[in-house]
């Protein structure tokens, strides 16, 4: 673990890389949950129309 921290201290671009990957994972998860919620609303609306 200390080797990893040492590597990251000398190659700080990889810290930025991990941050960007974390942000991407967050955006993806949020979009996915938004998509699911929207599908549920669509199903509910279709049910109401019948």
């Amino acid at each position: 673990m200390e080797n990893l921290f040492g590597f990251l201290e000398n190659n700080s671009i990889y810290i930025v890389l991990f941050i960007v990957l974390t942000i991407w994972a967050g955006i993806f998860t949020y979009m996915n949950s938004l998509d699911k919620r929207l599908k549920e609303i669509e199903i509910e609306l279709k049910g109401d129309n019948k």
Partner: protein
Amino acid sequence: MIYKSILFVLMTLVIIAGFSLPIVPSPSVWYEIPNIPGLEEKAKIIFFHVPTAWLSVVAFLMAMIYGIKYLRKQNMDDDAKSNAALQLGMIFTILATVTGSIWAKFTWGAFWHWDPRETSIFILLLIYGSLFALRSAIENEDKRAKLSAVYSIIAFLTVPFFIFIMPRIMSGLHPGSANDDNLGPVVDFKMNGTMQIVFYTSLIAFTMFYYWMWKIGYKSIIIKDRLHKKII
């Protein structure tokens, strides 16, 4: 679900490659990318900035296509699709402007130069910004959809000129301008195989992400309209 998994993997790979592939004067191994004169380390912006500009063209094209569809069938769903594409097109045009401007500060020395590329994207922002002003000014939804469809068709006719023609026939600072000796890495394909793979993967991943956002966007507009009509 497969679509989303592919998108997640592709975008993750593009981010990893975009940040970590080393730039060297003459690449000798597959993972090295060439140093492009005038761009140097900042050449990696290609993987993130160009797709945003590409998506603005795709989005405005889709807005026009669904505008034409609306005029033919008068289906409000087509207007919702056109509107969602317009919104995303505007977002990606702003992103292309901002990312390009940050890059310009460290390459040309200032955030804004009124270079032909910067000027053309600024005019596009004005053209499509006016469309949103027009949409919000009309209450009657049929009239709004009709005018918006016609506007998006006419507005798109200017896009190829402002994105592909004007910045290339005029002298400027942006890679690919008429006086650019390198002709720009994208125009002249000065990228090596690895760089091209990452670049095209980036274009595919961003386009897939755009499509997903567009679907969520137009579905939410349609649902909002239906709920609004139900309440009334």
